[in-house]
């Protein structure tokens, strides 16, 4: 288990990195934290021709407040940094809650926020959260930049709209309105292991304790994170009673997800726990919104 050869570039600025990616085109691959990529390279499942290492580009690592009360997170910010950032904890405590589930501490120290999202692992927590929060993704290419909504970023398992000569540069998290609650729950066989199913919700209540807005994402039960449409249809404008939440869970798990049977869980089991997790996630999120 030793990686195959590759060409290696370690630009020290963003411009230099973009130049290199443009030059390499299809052959180039960004090396961020490398916590998934290098493992795949060691197995020789991944054999990139050339790596553009972003670890020497300090300008890609930051957590900055935005004007409207949100945060902008540079792609190379380590997950551990995000997890332990006071501003993140204050504005988006969901991220702190989620981070504990991402692999193990040593992986989070090195793994990056943007790298995990761009990896788009169907069992990855951060890609799902990017969809859930509809983070605005800044995608850069030499001389160009574009913004993509988080919910449009992922197009397949391990696949995003980011082209080989592009990179995910920044993620902007919009501030949550008042009376917003959240909850991430997952079932995995062991701590730090891949989720068999996970559900995260962000809900907002109006002044009458009726559901004003709800976003719910289901993870590891399809090829990509699934952003529930039904949750909104059923909940918005209604009081989130136990019965309504149970109905959402029922509808979502029977109509919106497509879990697979694998070595660790059957599709049926996944469906059954997703229903449970949906209830737990929504119930706690509404509780927190109060």
């Amino acid at each position, binding site marked *: 288990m030793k990686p195959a050869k590759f060409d290696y570039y370690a630009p020290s600025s963003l411009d230099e990195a973009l130049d290199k990616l443009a030059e390499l085109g299809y052959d180039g691959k960004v090396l961020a934290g490398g916590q998934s990529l290098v493992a795949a390279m060691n197995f020789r499942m*991944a*054999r990139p021709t050339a790596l553009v290492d972003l670890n020497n580009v300090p300008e890609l690592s930051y957590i900055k407040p935005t004007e409207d009360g949100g945060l902008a997170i540079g792609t190379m910010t380590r997950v551990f940094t995000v997890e332990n950032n006071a501003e993140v904890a204050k504005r988006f405590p969901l991220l702190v809650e989620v981070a504990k589930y991402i692999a193990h501490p040593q992986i989070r120290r090195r793994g990056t926020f943007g790298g995990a999202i761009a990896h788009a692992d169907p069992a990855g927590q951060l890609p799902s959260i990017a969809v859930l929060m509809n983070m605005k993704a800044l995608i850069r290419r030499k001389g160009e930049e574009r913004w993509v909504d988080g919910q449009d970023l992922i197009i397949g398992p391990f696949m995003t709209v980011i082209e080989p000569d592009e990179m995910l540069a920044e993620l902007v998290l919009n501030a949550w309105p008042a009376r917003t609650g959240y909850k991430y729950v997952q079932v995995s066989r062991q701590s730090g292991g*891949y989720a068999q199913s996970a559900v995260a919700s962000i809900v907002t209540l109006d002044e009458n304790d009726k559901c004003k807005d709800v976003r719910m994402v289901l993870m590891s039960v*399809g090829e990509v994170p699934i952003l529930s449409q039904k949750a909104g249809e059923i909940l918005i404008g209604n009081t989130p009673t136990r019965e309504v939440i149970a109905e959402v869970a029922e509808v979502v798990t029977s109509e919106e997800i497509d879990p*697979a049977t694998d070595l660790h869980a059957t599709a049926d089991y996944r469906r059954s726990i997703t229903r449970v997790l949906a209830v737990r996630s929504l119930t706690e999120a509404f509780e927190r919104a109060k």
Partner: protein
Amino acid sequence: MKVEGDHLFKAPREVVFEMFNDPDALGAAVPGMQKMVKIDESHYEAVLGIRVGPVSANFSGTLALTDVVPPESVTLIVEGKGGAGFVKGVGYVKFEDLGDQTTLLKYTGEANIGGTLASVGQRMIDSVAKSMFKTVFEKLDKILEERWQKS
């Protein structure tokens, strides 16, 4: 690994069937297909570069179309191998004429995947395969649209 599914084409059965027997169309529909050459009436040689997230694997192999019953059914046998392992698959494809210029394609099959892909890539295989099927059908839809409208 068992595969099963269906897809609705908006074209008459003969057209869909013809497309399925056209290496250019098939080659164009499979993501990462780098080369597809006809060896004889029913055999093709292919080179495929799969690139999914961190995984990049090159396969070379053959595609055979057997038991061809125009325009009703065809059996596809795919064999490929590369550094990351091998894939051997049999797919039984049926074309149902639903009238109304539409055709329902139904497929069942079995794939035998071996080597590194099978032994350490288990977690990704299923979802990646599903998504590849999706892509193939989407591309075929496009090809069909062009052909069907042109002709």
